[in-house]
Structures are given as structure tokens and as C-alpha cells.
């Protein structure tokens, strides 16, 4: 049951360098973006940049782009489960004030 996707070559050093550059640019960007006044968008931008960097590392450095479907589903499942933990817990804290206000 050979998995065809694993027969693709791993990324080349050139591609790794490109990713490295993108990651460094992202880091510089997030550093400066934190100093700009963007109100509620500050944390959003920061998280967006972080997610992009993480995605690049996962897809290219960790070879998920070239991995089997099973691996891809596994990665998505992990982050999805984390979302469950965070959103459901937050739902308690955010709605506490509503209940008390009655």
C-alpha cells in the first residue's frame, strides 16, 4: 500500500530558505504591528501572523504538505480539539456577567 505522496521528494534547501525568510519577515512584521494603534485588530493581526507562521512550519518544515491524508486529518483534528476546549470554557466566562445582570 505505497502512499504516492511520500514518493515526492522532500522540499529542497532552496524552498527551506524561502520559508525561513518568510518566517523572519513575519516575525519582524508582528513586532512592528504590535506598536501600531489598531484597536481590536491588534490581537487579531498578531494571531493571524502567528497562525501563518505555524502553518508554514507545519506544511513545509514538518512535510505535512507531502504527507498522507491521514496525517493531514490528524493535524487538523488536534487544533480543532483545542478549539473545543477554548471556546466552550470561554462560553462560561463570557456569559457569567449576563446571568448575574438579571
Amino acid at each position, binding site marked *: *500500500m*505505497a*502512499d504516492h505522496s*511520500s514518493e515526492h521528494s*522532500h*522540499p*529542497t*534547501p532552496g524552498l*527551506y*530558505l524561502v*520559508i*525561513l525568510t518568510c*518566517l*523572519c519577515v513575519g*516575525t519582524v512584521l*508582528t*513586532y512592528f504591528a*504590535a*506598536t*501600531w*494603534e489598531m484597536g481590536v485588530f*491588534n*490581537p487579531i493581526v*498578531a*494571531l493571524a*501572523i*502567528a497562525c501563518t*507562521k*505555524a502553518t508554514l*512550519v*507545519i506544511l*513545509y*518544515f*514538518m*512535510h505535512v504538505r507531502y*504527507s*498522507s491524508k*491521514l*496525517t493531514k486529518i*490528524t*493535524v487538523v*483534528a*488536534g*487544533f480543532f*480539539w*483545542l478549539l473545543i*476546549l*477554548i471556546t466552550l*470554557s*470561554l462560553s462560561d*466566562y*463570557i456569559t457569567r456577567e449576563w446571568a448575574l445582570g438579571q
Partner: protein
Amino acid sequence: MDQQREASTFGMWVFLLTEIMMFGGLFGAYLIYRIKYYDAFVAGSTSISVNWGFANTLVLIGSSFTMAMAVWAAQKGNRKWQINFLILTMILGTVFLLIKAKEYYDKYEECHIPGHIIGKGFNAWGGCKLDDPKLGNIAEEMQEHARNSRRPVPADAFVEQTAKQTEIFFSFYFAMTGLHAFHMVIGLGLLSWLLFRAWRGQFGPDYFTPVELGGLYWHFVDIVWIYLFPLLYLINRTRTGI
């Protein structure tokens, strides 16, 4: 062999899922308190050195690159470059930990270590160093920052209470970076074992699975830091922030 490699890689990803959930629990708790005590979190975040954090981020990203290159070299069967890239990764990892140690030491000096068991007791409002009362005095820093940005200066009572609340921020700071650093130390151990095996010539195009798995672990630790940096160091660095 390929089937074994795929099984091992899948197994490693399943393990990384557990790591995602473990750090994730901590991140979730952090998020709840950041919402609840936003001002205190901003104040705490401002008091840690963003430059060292920035440097550390670049160091770790660099080490991820060298690690990816080590896997590539192992796959190509290039023994010399496997070893070199592994060593480079370990050097960068060690640099990261040294910078972290410096940051921790600064927090120790400023009396920002929460609790009263380690360190000198938490004090972010009263000037913990007698000969340098401004050191680590977050309450004062908040008022000065407001003065410099030409904003109304918050009252003494407010900044003192906010400074007291930063103890929770620092609890998270130490817990999150501490857990991360612990994983880095384990990572360095793994890398030295890989280095030993690479030196013995055990890896080549037919078999480089351990290097790949080590790479997956190392990249994961890098990803955790990618999130830690903005969440801890960059909460609000604008001029109008506290």
C-alpha cells in the same frame, strides 16, 4: 521500510497531538485571564524585554531551518552535513535557553517571580530594590508611560492594584515559558542522541526516520514559541497602551 516510516511518522504526530492539547490547556487558561485582567496583562507584558523575545524568536526559527536541513542531509546520505546541521541546531537551541536564563534572571532581580517561595517575593508596585526603587516597579512604569504619551496619568490606587494583578500574568509567563524550556531541554537531549547516531553513520536514504521524528518534535517546540512570543511579549506595545 517505507511502511514502518509512515507508521512511525503517524505515531509521532499522534504524540504531538497530546502536546498540542497539553500546551493548549495552558493557553486556554491564559486566554481567560487575559480577558479578565487585560490591563494587568498589558502591564506585565510591557515589563518583559521584547528585544530578547524577538531575538529568541529568530534564534528558534533559525534552528527550525537548520533542523529541516539536517533531515534533508540525512535523507541525502550526507554524513558531514547531517552532523553539522544537527550541531548548529543544538547551538541555536542552547543560545535560546541562555537568553531565557538571562530573562529569568532579570525577573528575579526585579522581584517579578510570583509566589514567595522562589525569588525575593513578588513586588511590582513598591520598588523591590532599595537602591534602585524604579527597578521592576510596574506601577511607576505605568504612570511614566502615560506621562510620556501625554495621556491622563492613572491614579496611584489603580496602578497599584493593576501591578498586584500582574502576579497572575507572571504565573503564566513562567508556567508557559518554563514548560516550553523544559521541552527544549528534552529536545536537546534527543538531538545529542541523534548526533551520536549520525556520527556513527547510521542514517542514509534508506533509513533516516529518527532524524525525521526528531525534526517533527523540534518544529513543534518552535511552533509553541511562535505563539508564545506575541501572546506574552506583544499584548500591547502601542504608545497609548499602558
